């Protein structure tokens, strides 16, 4: 449904050059069952996945390129999603959804014509193709006469497809998670658990006759707690997510996420606000990779750079951080949210080095920006939220490699600062380079020792300045398993992030008193 306000919300993000990262609470769900779905790609995915034949594809592609094209593609998608919620001890709310359609794109230089339809009849697809083709004003281009089927990596093969997992198998997992959280502390008086599993089938057919397919699973479990103590109420939660199957939900994993939800809630009763102003900030290993996502990742997406609107537009090859800083964006980590066998233009994903030993090394490219920069291929970073959206360069899993220090050395070096552990969201201004992230849980560091817990403070800094101020990095790298979602120009895509413990020598911390 497209209400005026949601349209504007989308455009605001686009227009403001803002990009956000968030861990939204209970997202509206997407996907489950489908008796005919399989993880293996069928011999004829056009027919078996979407009920269309190759002649139809050629007919639509011919229409799509009837006024010229440098590149053109059809992006077919079928998604099934299932979500279930446990609240007040009852599993009494479930959602099942199906979303399918095709997005049609014509590219001329850096100009894009785009249309989509949820109706996969020839007539509807031809209508959409004519609409998208209107961007061009040249001569017709003939699509390839034959198809060749390409494939990418295999980073999320799961034993049982979600389409074959019945709801009866899922319910005990929600109940167990709730039971563990409820038992975690006598002060916990409300527990809610949210479950989602989803499966997307993707088929990309391009002008050159290349056909790529992928089947992408995703699941998330979120545990939330509310506790009351001495007349005060606090709430918080924790979640785990990835491209995994049902067997990923081991009892050990459930115990971990339930304990995190309880601990992160109960610590809030004792938490204080740090003082306001600039101070050293230690970022704990794991979710603190949010720093990289905001301070450098978005600014390295090549669409901003080819337009000259990123603070990093003229910085390739420049020294931007100390020698021990190497930052990568990687689509090849098995089972992670940011993993992709191939990107949404059919390019196999790779591990792209953004910063190598302190030197700015590469932007993140889609096909349009790779061509703009004269590169032989994209970095496999062309992504889209769904068939309703055009492709943009996006992050996948962004992290920093281990450094030469230890966590203890880093903490001992701080006289008066904070250590940040859990986060809810972040945001960046691409051109000015200012970015923020919000700390939900952390600690004060006083005279080299971790002391009181802290809560609810926003951190603000400038990307290139913060990279220069990464003065120490430890050897305890950790990838975060929380379900991060990155928003850019109104499109949300799943991402991952990680970090070893690092020290940023000065950042502006939102505090309660001067």
């Amino acid at each position, binding site marked *: *449904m497209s209400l*005026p*306000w949601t*349209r*504007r919300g989308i*455009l605001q993000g686009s227009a403001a*050059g803002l990009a956000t990262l968030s861990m939204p609470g209970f997202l509206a769900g997407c996907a489950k069952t489908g008796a005919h779905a399989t993880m293996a790609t069928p011999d004829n995915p056009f027919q078996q996945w979407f009920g269309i034949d190759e002649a139809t594809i050629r007919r639509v592609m011919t229409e799509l390129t009837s006024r010229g094209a440098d590149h053109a593609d059809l992006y077919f998608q079928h998604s099934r999603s299932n979500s*279930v919620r446990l*609240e*007040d001890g009852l*599993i*009494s*709310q*479930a*959602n*099942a*959804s*199906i*979303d399918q359609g095709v997005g049609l794109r014509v590219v001329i230089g*850096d*100009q*894009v014509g*785009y*249309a989509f*339809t949820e*109706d996969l009849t020839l007539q509807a697809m031809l209508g*959409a193709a004519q609409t*998208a083709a209107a*961007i061009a004003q040249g001569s017709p281009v003939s699509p390839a006469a034959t198809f060749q089927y390409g494939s990418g990596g295999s980073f999320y093969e799961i034993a049982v497809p979600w389409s074959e997992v019945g*709801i009866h198998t899922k319910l005990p997992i929600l109940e167990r998670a709730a039971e563990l959280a409820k038992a975690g502390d006598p002060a916990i008086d*409300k527990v809610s658990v949210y479950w989602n599993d989803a499966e997307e089938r993707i088929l990309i057919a391009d002008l050159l006759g290349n056909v790529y397919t992928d089947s992408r699973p995703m699941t998330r479990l979120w545990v939330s707690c509310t506790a009351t103590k001495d007349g005060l*109420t*606090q*709430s918080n939660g924790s979640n785990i997510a990835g491209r995994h199957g049902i067997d990923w939900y081991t009892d050990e994993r459930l115990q971990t996420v339930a304990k995190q939800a309880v601990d992160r809630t109960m610590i809030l009763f004792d938490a204080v*606000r740090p003082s*306001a*102003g600039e101070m050293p900030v230690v970022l704990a290993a794991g979710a603190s990779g949010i720093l990289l996502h905001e301070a450098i990742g978005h600014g390295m997406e090549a669409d901003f750079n080819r*337009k*000259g*609107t990123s*603070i*990093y*537009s003229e910085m390739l090859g420049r020294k931007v951080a100390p020698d021990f800083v190497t930052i990568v964006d990687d689509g090849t980590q098995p089972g992670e949210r940011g993993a992709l066998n191939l990107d949404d233009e059919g390019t196999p994903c790779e591990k792209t080095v953004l910063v190598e030993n302190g030197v700015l090394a590469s932007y993140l490219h889609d096909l349009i920006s790779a061509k703009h920069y004269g590169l032989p291929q994209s970095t496999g970073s062309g992504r889209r939220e769904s068939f309703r959206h*055009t492709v943009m360069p996006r992050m996948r899993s962004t992290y920093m490699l281990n450094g030469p220090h230890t966590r203890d050395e880093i903490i001992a070096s701080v006289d008066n600062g904070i250590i940040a552990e859990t986060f809810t969201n972040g945001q960046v201004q691409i*051109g*000015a380079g200012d*970015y*923020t*992230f*919000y700390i*939900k849980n952390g600690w004060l560091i006083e005279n080299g020792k971790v002391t009181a817990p802290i*809560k*609810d*403070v926003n951190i*603000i800094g400038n990307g290139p300045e913060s990279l220069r101020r990464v003065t120490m990095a430890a050897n305890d790298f950790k990838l975060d398993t929380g379900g991060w979602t990155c928003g850019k120009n109104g499109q949300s895509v799943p991402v991952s992030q990680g970090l070893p413990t690092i020290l940023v020598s000065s950042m*502006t*911390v*939102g*505090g309660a008193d*001067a």
Partner: protein
Amino acid sequence: MHDEQIQQAQTAVDLAQSAGADAAWASVSRSRSVDFTVRDGKLEEVKDATSRSLSIRLYVDGRYASTQTTDLRPDQVSAFVREVVDMTRALQPDPFRVLPDPELYEGRSTQDLELADPAIIQLTREDRLEICHNQNAELIGKDKVVSATSGCSDGHEVSAAASSNGFVGSQESTWLWLGSEVTVNDGGDKKPEAWMWGGSPNRSDVPNPQAIATLALKRAHDRLGTVKGPTALTKMVVDPSATSRLLGRLLSPATGRGLQQGRSFWAGKLGVPTVSDILHITDEPLLKRGLSSRLYDGEGIAAKSMPLIQGGALQNFYIDTYYGRKLDMAPTTGSASNRVVSPGQRDLAGIISDMDDGIYVTSWLGGNADSTTGDFSFGLRGHLIQGGQLGGPVGEMNITGNLLTLFSKLIEVGNDPWPYSRILCPTLVFDQVQFSGA
């Protein structure tokens, strides 16, 4: 009106009941939207979308589930609904899950809210290009401009809903938004960006392209030379266009769900003076040409004006049927429409000219608030205020505190509400706000 969509919704209700549901609610929508983007004088992107969807809420043997699909082939829809009915039977019974009391459907307004404008439905490619180029022409080649992108986005939607306990309704809306984003060179690597968007359901209320572009350029130029602001406890003046972020966070926990789940700082405060007594806010679903106007809400409850905050005291929670039954409170409406803040006497310029010392906030960057406690921390950009004058631009700052405390220190509401928001709020002035900066 919209007989075809109403028929589709009623067919879906029948389908759900024949598949075994005791009760059902169905809604269908069909929309078309078009986006044009022009960058630096050249058409960059055209996106044209025709979209449709079906949503059904199912009540089966005291159990509940919801479903959406965009695959509307009749055989696929029936198979899917049967599958979801089976899934619903696997859930636990919940006595609070029922369709709304049909009495709440009664009394729906019959007035024309002017939400659908034929002039928008009839926009042509040439109209849209003109809107974009007229904005972009005001920006290309102007002082320090690195890149300028101008766009327009319009659409038309018809939705209809029906329920097994007698609800039938349909709504039609259009929208046209236009906006520009400008990136300017600040010397060195910094390239501050700014934007401006405005729009309306009715073309005659849409601002003119030149005015939009001029304001976007002014906002970008205003960021040149931004320095880190001070750490200080001082007055905060919030531009009307930035107020909705604060008010949204203040009002979002005032829901039945938040209250029942122990996640609302408004718990126990209904009718109790809690924030500044100059704050008055009303939920107004029946505003003509309002961005969130409607005749009925997502459950079919007939829309009516609802006081939210009067004299600093919360007057109503947003309560839907489910949480109303759980809380033993009467449903109001489960979701917000237009929120209108009662205006005061002066505009932004008048307020600043009378202020010795403070910080004027033009926009926010990141930050969050805890809906259970009200504790917040937000990043911001703006200007210093000194001796009744606006000073240079400042950034890289946060404000931190508690929302109820912040709004208890609201000392003035302006008379200049921002029209391009679901929350129609004028300039706000707060005393003793904690800023952190250099």
